[in-house]
């Protein structure tokens, strides 16, 4: 305890004075607050939770001491979560309480600022994807993928029930997708990849196993950091089957790689929080963009432009009849609370970078991955990259020794990498400073010796 620790006898965030409370009870006409509770005795709870109250300072100390148990590691983990430097501007502006504490913009007349920021976020995604519509947030890439599948079901429901995804995919992503389609007729199947990217012939065979594919999903880059080279062909395969072509990506990759609209993508999903959030144990921001024809079927919130009573431009949530609070069981999704504030941060981070900064960031993801792969490849006992593909940000390396042992040894030296096979590790450069990469190469040199 510290002498400036303050304790209250109740909630520190309730402002009631004794006099005020008495006056209020009197106005209501009861003697005590207890009288206001209409809870049958049988279900009353009186035991207490056994949770101690703490001062603000003690609470901060508690959380700090718990979180200090996390090791201080240089993370070379990637796969949609990167440690890109976030300009200080983002924290300072996004933390303004008007942004942080306001609710969904159901009263647009007093929410113009947030609506405009979300409109700008949508515009960013429209520019990045080339698709006409982007919603203003889903939870993360996995749930956005699930929503894409239910969209596919709605718009292609006459044609079938198969959803195809590559065999190279994060577990959490596929599992989430399966939960999202559990209540529909859809089934999820994998199609093969070859050397880290889509095997288009095999995809075609998989599609041809029936005429009932509603959606083909591919990623660029893939979970292994490889850049997909045959997006147009994949799109054509999907198109040929009258299935939606859903592409997974992220705002940084999209700044450099082929524009989804140009390769026939119908929907783009992904995790937009690669900009705007530090690695946050998987907390994300679901990117969701699609063609204009699906406008009335889009899940999630949309901000549009309108006019106010004085004919001035004004922003508002629009097409709300798609949403659960109006359409209930016929809504396009059950999403309500979303990730608006993360979208704000992402928009701020992107705006701080500007188009030059975003393109540079992506380019450096390519060149720095190449450079690190070459340096690792120079080590005896390491071959990198494993896949004969272009890479961005991350790549798989083969190690002669067992990969789990290598990873464990590296962790002891302060570096976190993926184990992706018995003799394969995956390494990511994004957000890792040059000097830390130097240290990593030095550690690898020791580890594989």
């Amino acid at each position, binding site marked *: 305890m510290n002498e400036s620790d303050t304790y209250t006898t109740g909630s520190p965030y*309730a402002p009631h004075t004794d006099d005020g409370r008495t006056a209020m009870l009197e106005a209501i006409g009861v003697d005590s607050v207890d009288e206001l509770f209409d809870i049958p005795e049988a279900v009353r709870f009186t035991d207490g939770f056994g949770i101690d109250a703490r001062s603000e300072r003690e609470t901060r100390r508690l959380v700090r001491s718990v979180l200090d148990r996390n090791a201080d590691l240089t993370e070379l983990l990637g796969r949609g979560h990167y440690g890109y430097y976030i300009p200080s501007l983002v924290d300072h502006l996004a933390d303004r309480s008007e942004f942080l504490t306001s609710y969904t913009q159901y009263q647009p*007349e007093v929410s113009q600022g947030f609506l405009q920021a979300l409109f700008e976020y949508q515009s*960013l995604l429209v520019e990045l994807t080339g698709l006409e519509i982007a919603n203003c947030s889903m*939870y993360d890439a996995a749930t956005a993928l699930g929503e894409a599948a239910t969209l596919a079901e709605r718009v292609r429901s006459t044609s079938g029930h198969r959803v195809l995804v590559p065999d190279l995919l994060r577990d959490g992503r596929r599992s989430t997708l399966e939960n999202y389609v559990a209540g529909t007729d859809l089934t999820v199947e994998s199609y093969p990849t070859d050397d880290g990217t889509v095997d288009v012939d095999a995809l075609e065979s998989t599609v041809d196993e029936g005429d009932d594919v509603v959606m083909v999903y591919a990623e660029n880059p893939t979970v292994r950091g490889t850049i997909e080279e045959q997006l147009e062909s994949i799109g054509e395969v999907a198109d040929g089957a009258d299935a939606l072509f859903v592409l997974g990506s992220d705002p940084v990759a999209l700044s*450099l790689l082929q524009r989804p609209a140009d390769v026939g993508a119908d929907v783009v999903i992904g995790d937009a929080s690669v900009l705007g959030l530090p690695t946050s144990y998987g907390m994300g921001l679901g990117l969701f963009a699609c063609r204009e024809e699906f406008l009335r079927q889009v899940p999630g919130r949309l901000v549009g432009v309108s006019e106010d009573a004085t004919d001035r431009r004004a922003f508002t949530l629009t097409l709300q009849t798609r949403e659960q609070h109006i*359409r209930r069981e016929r809504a396009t999704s059950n999403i309500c609370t979303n990730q608006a504030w993360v979208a704000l941060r992402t928009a701020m981070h992107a705006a701080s970078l500007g188009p030059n900064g975003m393109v540079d960031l992506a380019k450096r993801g390519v060149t720095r991955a190449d450079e690190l792969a070459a340096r690792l490849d120079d080590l005896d006992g390491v071959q990198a990259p494993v896949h004969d593909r272009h890479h961005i940000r991350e790549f798989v390396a083969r190690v002669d020794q067992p990969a789990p042992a290598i990873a464990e040894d590296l962790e002891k030296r302060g570096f976190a990498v993926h184990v992706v096979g018995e003799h394969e590790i995956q390494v990511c450069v994004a957000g890792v400073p040059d000097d830390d990469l130097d240290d990593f190469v030095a550690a690898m040199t020791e580890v594989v010796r």
Partner: protein
Amino acid sequence: QYEPLLSEKDQTSVDIGAGDSPLPDDLTRDDLELPELSEPELARHYTRLSQMIYGIDSGPYPLGSCTMKYNPKFTEDVAALPSAAVHPDRSEESIQGTLELLYRLQDYLGRIGGMDAVTLQPPAGAAGEFVGIRVAAAYHEHNGEGHRDEVIIPESAHGTNFATAALGGYDVVSLPSDEDGRVDLDALEAALSENTAALMLTNPNTLGLFERDIEEIADMVHDVGGLLYYDGANLNALLGRARPGDMGFDVMHYNVHKTFATPHGGGGPGAGPVGVVAELEPFLPAPRVREADAETNSGQATYELFDPDHTIGNVHGFQGNWLVLVKAFAYIARLGDEGLTDASAKAVLNANYLASQIEYDVPYGPFHHEFVASAGDQDAADVAKRMLDYGVHPPTTKWPEIVPEALMTEPTEIESKDTLDRLAAAFNAVAQESDEVLEDAPERTTARRIDQTSAARSPRLSWHELAEEDT
């Protein structure tokens, strides 16, 4: 006070030529056109935008069922700790702090809800509902009762309940209220059958009324083999005085951005942890956190992830909205038993006091943390717009439909008597005003009344769709 779009300040097109590209031309896009602005310009842009937003720190925000509490500033500090920034794919050994915090939060929430097991994965309330529905489905399936295809939902329930049940593949059976605004037991009896998978209930319900027959309701649902789901949106009414687990609920979600004061962020992120009774634990999403057998050298407990035996798998790519969970943990740890119980008491006191001070009719009662007034002859949506002119945020309107022209009002515990009096004065001033005044409202806000129809009729959803004359 008008702020141009970023795109109206600058548009810079970056050519991605083969020349300086590290990739072959056919793997890259042609160009990227976005605003290129300096930090001072951005700081002003977002500062001005923020000034056009009404937040919790602007004044009372009595949105019914949204529980707009004050968001303690210090919770932002703990979520911003560098040690909180960890990658989801790290080894368990290297994130013992994260796992410990999650474990302790699971424990806190279990105690608060009277539940045996808790998952923290759902990133929002609706996602929590979805977990509940998926868990129920898995449970029934596991018991060979996969035929159950109906979910019963009271008419006055949150829209997400209906949408979630539908997303889960269930038919929705809508349940009317009785004349007291509560569950009509006869109607419930009629709705229940061997096809009932679950009944989703909010308690207190959206009218703020406690479902006094909750024990009987639970028995009825359980008797037909159904599960009872608790929508946690209104949990702020009961903290420390009643627990869903004790009332017979089998599954519940918690809205930490409501009950546990994490910020709403203009729509999110929130978090919707789900608690279940022991019988349902094996079906919870994977992974969850538990204490491991081993201790550290200094005798501290260690933690590990595990997959429940019959897990439904993931409902989020990772573990949900981690940073939100950190804030919720900090809030609960700060308040403790006494603070949480006091928060509910004052939330209920405030709602009752406010209701006693306004001139609109409040048809149902006794209510707890929120009440639904009727705007009577006035249009509730217009009433809301006009309240904006008095510098306060209006209540939720036109819902639940059981009250005509509903004004669903939840002041929460953070308002003082003075603020409630100011809010009541706004209600009462508007109550006296003419339809013409109401229809013209708001007039003192950043934007005047916004045309929703034209926005939806010809949607313009990005700056790419704005013609020159719009700018």
